[in-house]
Every structure is written in structure tokens, then in C-alpha cells.
């Protein structure tokens, strides 16, 4: 069952990913990206990472996609359609390398992955629930990092405003 769900989500995600890369119209690309993100969130849910999955849906699927849509309206996307949406030559040249990357990853597999499971999160999760456990880690060990995340988001916001704002509104 788990496998089935995983396979479905992952193949959908990959399909959507191909859509992100291949579709010409930016609007369709957003839709494809959204679909890919949702599928990835599905993978998260399948794997028992509910919190991350939920946040993925919330932040990514909603917030960021809205961003993109917003920008695409600001930057008239019809203009983009008048041109080729892809660099064909570059695509052709780089495709073998991408495939090469995949093959190499597979080769690495053949060489062998040895990972020794060692944690006891499962037990904790069953005791307290996923979100609590994550929260506990986040606010103990990764407290500082979490603060940094907030700072990153703040800075990102400031930056977006600073750079993106209309310049003639600022006095000289």
C-alpha cells in the first residue's frame, strides 16, 4: 500500500516535473510546478512526515505559487509566448549529461549503499506524534537555526521590497 502510494506520487511528481521543464506557457508551468509540489507533499505524507508535508502544501503550494502568479501578471507572460520557450541546442547538448548524472547515481547504487539505522524517532513519534517531535527538535537543537530561518524570511521580504519596489516612488 505504502509502496503503491509512493509510486503513484513519485511518478506523478516526475511527470509534473517534466511538465515544469517542457511546457512552453509559463502559466502551465506554474500549474505543473504546483502539481509537482503537491505530489511531493504526498510523498511526505506517505513517509510519515506530516508536518513537512503540510507546510509544503501551505508555504509552497499556496504562498509561493501565488507569488509566481503575481509576478507573471506583473511581467506580462503573453510576451514570453512570442518567443521560443526553450534553448533547444543547449537542451540537446546538456541532455546526455543529465542522463549521465542519472546513470552515475545508479552506478553508485550498484557500488552499494550501506546505511546503518540507529535512531529511535519511530518510538518517539508513536508516543508523541510527528509534529511534536519535530517541534521538540526544532526548538531545542535547531533553535538558533530556526531563528535564522526567520531572519532569512525577513531579509527575503525586505529584499523583495527593496529591489522590486517602483523606483520613481523614492525621492532622489
Amino acid at each position, binding site marked *: 500500500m505504502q509502496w503503491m502510494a509512493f509510486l503513484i506520487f*513519485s511518478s506523478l511528481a516526475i511527470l509534473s516535473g517534466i511538465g*515544469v*521543464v517542457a511546457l512552453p506557457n*509559463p502559466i502551465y508551468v506554474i500549474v505543473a510546478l504546483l502539481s509537482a509540489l503537491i505530489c511531493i507533499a504526498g510523498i511526505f505524507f506517505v513517509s510519515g512526515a506530516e508536518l513537512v508535508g503540510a507546510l509544503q502544501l501551505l*508555504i509552497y503550494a499556496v504562498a509561493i505559487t501565488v507569488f509566481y502568479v503575481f509576478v507573471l501578471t506583473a511581467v506580462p507572460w503573453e510576451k*514570453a509566448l512570442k518567443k521560443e520557450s526553450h*534553448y533547444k541546442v543547449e537542451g540537446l547538448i546538456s541532455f546526455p549529461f543529465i542522463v549521465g548524472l542519472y546513470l552515475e547515481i545508479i552506478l553508485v*547504487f550498484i557500488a552499494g549503499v550501506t546505511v546503518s539505522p540507529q535512531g529511535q524517532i519511530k518510538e518517539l513519534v508513536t508516543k508523541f506524534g510527528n509534529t511534536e517531535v*519535530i517541534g521538540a*527538535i526544532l526548538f531545542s537543537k535547531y533553535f538558533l537555526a530556526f531563528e535564522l530561518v526567520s531572519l532569512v524570511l525577513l531579509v527575503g521580504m525586505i529584499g523583495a521590497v527593496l529591489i522590486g519596489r517602483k523606483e520613481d516612488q523614492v525621492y532622489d
Partner: protein
Amino acid sequence: MISLEAYLVVSIILFGLGIFGMIVRRNLVTVLMSMELALNAVNILFIGADVHLNLANGQVFALFIIALAAAEAAVGLGIIIAIFRLRKVDSTDEITDMRG
């Protein structure tokens, strides 16, 4: 339990697609979107590793990545808008003032 290899394969395929998208896309916004895809692909691997290792640190990291992707997208889109304002261009072959 889904094996780590499966997560890895999906993750790497999506990562590769994202990178490929960054190489072939012409529109600035779509380039940025491909970047999002690549970033998010890695999350799968973290989750897989978590599952496999029986730990939760990867999920924390995945959260960081999501937040970071948001911030980066914000800044990136801000820059795209600024470029569009200044030049009315939106594709990568038009922002090649600096070369050589």
C-alpha cells in the same frame, strides 16, 4: 517500508529535471521555477533518509529548505520585476549585457 534507494531515485530524477529546466528555460520566471523544483526534490531525499535512519532531523532540514526557497523566490521575483521595470525584458538571452 520504502527503501532509501527509491527516495533517492525520485529525488535525483526531480533534481536533474530542475537543473535541466534551469539550463533550457528561456523565461526568467520559469528558470526560477525550475530552481524551486530542484530544491524541493532534495526534500524527498531528506524524508527518505529520515525514514531509513529512524530519525527526524531531515524533516527539520526540509522545513528550512522550504522556508529558504520561499525567501529566495521572493528575492528572485523582486529582481525579475526590477529588471522588467528597467528594461522590459523577461528572457535570459536578453539580459546578457555583461559577458566576456
